[in-house]
């Protein structure tokens, strides 16, 4: 899907002076950053910091990602949850210096589906953690990170 430049409304910084409501939320945006969770070093510690007591493995969570990433700087990952009333999806990378990579809040009416790209320090398990109805579920997939090219 190529981004057709002409079809896209290009908004400059001036957009900041948007309706107060949005501006308000943009300003409060920065405060909601779960520093503790983003500094945890393991799957279990991250779960605790996210407020999860326990998390049960579920085959209702699908992780689409390559088995081998040619470069750890950009690893495409898609997570889709078939668990009813999914409210949040988090991405955890076990062997990264900080395990928690991202936490997406999924409001009513938004698909429990998210694609993004993460950095992986080395071959590792990637966990997708889903919160649905206040309960936590997870699935995992190992992604091998290889050394491409003849650098190194």
């Amino acid at each position, binding site marked *: 899907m190529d981004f057709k430049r002409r079809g896209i409304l290009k908004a400059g910084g001036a957009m900041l002076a948007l309706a107060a409501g949005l501006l308000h939320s943009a300003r409060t945006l920065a405060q909601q950053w779960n520093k503790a969770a983003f500094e945890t070093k393991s799957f279990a510690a991250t779960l605790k910091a996210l407020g999860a007591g326990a998390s049960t493995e579920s085959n209702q969570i699908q992780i689409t990602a390559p088995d081998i990433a040619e470069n750890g700087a950009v690893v495409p990952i898609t997570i889709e949850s078939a668990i009813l009333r999914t409210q949040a999806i988090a991405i955890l990378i076990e062997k990264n210096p900080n395990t928690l990579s991202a936490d997406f809040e999924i409001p009513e009416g938004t698909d429990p589906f998210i694609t993004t790209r993460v950095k992986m320090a080395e071959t590792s398990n990637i966990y997708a953690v889903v919160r649905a109805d206040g309960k936590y579920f997870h699935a995992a997939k190992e992604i*091998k990170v*290889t*050394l*491409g090219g*003849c650098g*190194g």
Partner: protein
Amino acid sequence: MKRLPLVVLAALAGCASGPSDDEARARAEQVFRESFTHGNRQMAARVDQQDEVQALCTRYRNEAPQDVADRIGSAAAAGIRYPASGKFLGDWRQGERIAQDGYGLRFTDADTKRPNGGGCYNCHRIAPAEISYGTIGPSLYRFGALRGTGEPVQRYVYGKIYDSQAFLACSHMPRFGKNGVLTEEQITHLVALLLDPESPVNK
């Protein structure tokens, strides 16, 4: 690769019409020297001048006629300096590190105290655990298991790493020993990686 008769080879070497090959080569040498003027001066001096082997392999595009190939091969073989101790097998663990390491001799490699790597995995499959390997060179997996680990093979592997052209004129493989890229000790570690029965290559 079938050997082409000599006459065809000569024709191939001067295949382009227009200025003769020598004239085009002289012009290219001048353009080359004028295109690396802002970078590292020592490195420029080294690449501006080709040694005889580099010049011949360039001229014949790595397919030298038999007589030229024999001359290159025998000169290379005569130039190999084998370890005075006669000990070819170093430590395969250090060999694996050298084979993985691509550091050294690049214009960004400022730390001249750090030893050069061999970068062998760039072109060869070696230990089975490494899935990110190259295929410019043949697979060396199970090299010792397939070819034996006695002194003649050790001597061959040492010589091949020291100066690959002693065994294949105009080989793509760098002359690691001859060009001073790897030390004698580093080469013995690589020999061990390929031939030590304990090395993962032979498991």
